[in-house]
C-alpha cells in the first residue's frame, strides 16, 4: 500500500469498525438521511418521468377532434382512455366529415366509455393500431364485429389469452335501455409499449356501438316466428318485421353475425373523439383556423372542437411543476431538519468517544489524522445514504405511470 493511500485506508478501516460497533444508531442515521435525500430526488425523477410520458403521448398525436366540453377531458379520454365525465357531449361520425373535407387530413375515430372487467374498451379502426405502431405479440387483428384485441397489461391483468372470450361490463343496472354486456372473442394480444394502449381492449367501432346498444345481433327471423310474436309482419319486399319478442344475442353466432345490423343512420352513431392527422403543417393550420372560427360563431357550444394535445399536456405539466416546487420546498425543509438531527447525533457520538480520540492524539495521531477518521465515518454514511436515496428515487420514478394514471383518471 502506498504511503499516500495508507492514511485513507486506515481511516476507512477505523470508520467501518466504528460504524459497525454502533450499528443501531448508525442504521437509524442512515435511514433518516436516505429518506430525506430520497424525497426531493424521487419527486424530481417521478415528475420528470410523468411529464415525459404525458408529453410523448401528446406529442405523437397531432390533433384531436371531440365534443367534450373540457380540453382536459377530451385529451385524457382520447389519449389515456380515462372515463369521460360528460358522455352526453360526445359527437357523432358526422364530425369526421368536417376534418376530411378538402383532403386536409385523415381521421381515426374513437368510441370510448365502455369497459370489460374494468379495462377500457376502445372502439376504433385498424388505422389506430398502425398509427400507434402497435404490434402483435400473439394472434391477429379483429376482423369481425364481436372480436377484440387486448393490450399486454390488460391480458395479464385479466388473465386472458387468444381464443378466449370476455364479457363487457353492463352499464347501470337500473338503465334498461343502456349498455348490455356482449361477449368479445379475443383474436390477438399486443406487444408491450409502455403506454395507455397496454391497458386497453381494442374493438372495431361497430362492436363499440353494439356494446352501447346502437347495433345488435339476433338470429335471422323466419315466417314461422310469427306464431311466437318474434315476427310481427312482412314488408312488400318480403323482408320480415321483427317484434319485441325476438331475443337479442349477447354474442354473434355464425347465423346472427350475418344479420348484424344497426337501426338508424350510421353517420349519427356516437363518436367520443377522433385523432386527426393533417396532411401538412399548412393543412393543420387551416383546420385549426376553421374550427376556431366555427366555434366562436356558434354560441350554443355544440360544435366539436379541434385542439393540439401537446398544448393541453403542457398546461398539465406546468401544474405538475407547480406542485413539484411546493414539494421541493417541503423536502428541503425536511432535509435541513434531518441533517440537523443527524449532525447532532453524530456530534454526540463523537463526544462519547472523546476519550478514545484523546488517547489516539496522545499516542501520536495528529489532529488532521483524527479529523480524517471522523470525516471518513461521516462520508461513509453520506455515500451509503446517497446510494439508497438514488435507488429509492429510481424505484419511485417507475411509479410515474401511476402518477399519470392518477392525473388523467382524476
Amino acid at each position, binding site marked *: 500500500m502506498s504511503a499516500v493511500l*495508507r492514511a485513507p485506508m*486506515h481511516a476507512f478501516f477505523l470508520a467501518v469498525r466504528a460504524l459497525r460497533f454502533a450499528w443501531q444508531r448508525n442504521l437509524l442515521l442512515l435511514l433518516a438521511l436516505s429518506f430525506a435525500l430520497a424525497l426531493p430526488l424521487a419527486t424530481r425523477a417521478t415528475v420528470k418521468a410523468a411529464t415525459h410520458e404525458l408529453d410523448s403521448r401528446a406529442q405523437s398525436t397531432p390533433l384531436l377532434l371531440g365534443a367534450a366540453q373540457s380540453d382536459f377531458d377530451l385529451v385524457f379520454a382520447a389519449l389515456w382512455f380515462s372515463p369521460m365525465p360528460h358522455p352526453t357531449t360526445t359527437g357523432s361520425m358526422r364530425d369526421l366529415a368536417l376534418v376530411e373535407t378538402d383532403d386536409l387530413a385523415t381521421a381515426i375515430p374513437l368510441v370510448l366509455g365502455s369497459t370489460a372487467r374494468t379495462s377500457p374498451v376502445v372502439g376504433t379502426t385498424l388505422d389506430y393500431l398502425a398509427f400507434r405502431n402497435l404490434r402483435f405479440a400473439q394472434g391477429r387483428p379483429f376482423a369481425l364485429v364481436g372480436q377484440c384485441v387486448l393490450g399486454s397489461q390488460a391480458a395479464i391483468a385479466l388473465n386472458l389469452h387468444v381464443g378466449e372470450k370476455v364479457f363487457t361490463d353492463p352499464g347501470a343496472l337500473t338503465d334498461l335501455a343502456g349498455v348490455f354486456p356482449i361477449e368479445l372473442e379475443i383474436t390477438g394480444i399486443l406487444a408491450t409499449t409502455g403506454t395507455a394502449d397496454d391497458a386497453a381492449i381494442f374493438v372495431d367501432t361497430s362492436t363499440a356501438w353494439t356494446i352501447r346498444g346502437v347495433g345488435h345481433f339476433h338470429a335471422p327471423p323466419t315466417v314461422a316466428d310469427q306464431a311466437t310474436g318474434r315476427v310481427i309482419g312482412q314488408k312488400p319486399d318480403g323482408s320480415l318485421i321483427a317484434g319485441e319478442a325476438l331475443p337479442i344475442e349477447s354474442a354473434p353466432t355464425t347465423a346472427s353475425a350475418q344479420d348484424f345490423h344497426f337501426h338508424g343512420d350510421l353517420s349519427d352513431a356516437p363518436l367520443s373523439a377522433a385523432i386527426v392527422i393533417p396532411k401538412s403543417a399548412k393543412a393543420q393550420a387551416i383546420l385549426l383556423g376553421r374550427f376556431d372560427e366555427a366555434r366562436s360563431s356558434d354560441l350554443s357550444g355544440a360544435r366539436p372542437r379541434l385542439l393540439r394535445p401537446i398544448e393541453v399536456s403542457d398546461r398539465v405539466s406546468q401544474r405538475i411543476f407547480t406542485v413539484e416546487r411546493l414539494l421541493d420546498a417541503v423536502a428541503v425543509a425536511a432535509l435541513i431538519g434531518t441533517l440537523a438531527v443527524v449532525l447532532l447525533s453524530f456530534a454526540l457520538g463523537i463526544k462519547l*468517544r472523546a476519550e478514545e480520540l484523546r488517547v*489516539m492524539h496522545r499516542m*501520536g*495521531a495528529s489532529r488532521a489524522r483524527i479529523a480524517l477518521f471522523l470525516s471518513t465515518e461521516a462520508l461513509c454514511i453520506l455515500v451509503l445514504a446517497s446510494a439508497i436515496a438514488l435507488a429509492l428515487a429510481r424505484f419511485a420514478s417507475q411509479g410515474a405511470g401511476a402518477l399519470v394514471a392518477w392525473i388523467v383518471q382524476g
Partner: protein
Amino acid sequence: MTTLHSNLLETTTLEFSRPSGFQLRVDAIHLAAGESLAVRGVSGSGKSTLLALLSGELLPSKGEVWFDSACVSSRSDAFRRAFRIRNAGLVFQDFGLVESLSVLENVLLPFRLHNTLTLDADARDRAHTMLGAVGLHAKSARFPAQLSHGERQRTAIARALVTGARLILADEPTGNLDPALKHDIASLLRDIARSAHAALVVATHDESIIDRFDRALTITPQPAPELRGAQ
C-alpha cells in the same frame, strides 16, 4: 546539557507551569535501557504532567528531555508526534482501548495513527508475539467489553510495546485494578521493559507497588507563586 547521554532517557531539571497557577519542578532523571522508575505523589502533584513532558506531548518551560541522544523537547510538534508513535509506549489508567476494535486490532492501532509505521506482516507477527507475552493470545478476537480489567490493561501494555518502543510511560496503570492484580501488572510491566531493553516510567500513588521498580521519584505539589511570595 553536558552528559554523554549514556542513558536512554535523560532530563535536566524540568519546570512546567500552567496559566491556572499549577507549577511542576522535577529534578534531573537518568534512566538506562531496561531500568524502571516509579514516580509517586499525591493526586494533582504533576505525575501525569511529567509523563506528558517525557513523551513530548508537553514542552517544559525550563529544562530539556533527551532520548537516545536526541533532544526531544526542542523539536517540532510533528517530530515529537513521530517520536511518540515510534519510541514511546503509553499505558493509561483507564486503559485507553478503542471499544470498536478487537484486542488484536487495538494492539495494532499505533500502526494506523501515523505514516512512520507500516502495518505489514512483521507488525502483525509482533502483535501476536506481544499478545502471547501478556497471555492474551487466545483472546485476540475479543472486544474490550468482553475482557476483565486486568486483561484490558494487559492489552494496553501489548499495544505500548508493539512498535518496539524503548520508552514505556505508564500513567497509574494499576489505578483501576483489584489489589491482587496490581502487583501482577506492575511486575509484568517491569519484566517486559527489561526484556525489551526499554526505559520504564510509572506514575502511581499506590505505595504498595513502588518496590516492584528499580527506583522511585517523589513529586511534591509546588506552591502557587503568590503563596511562595508570602512565605
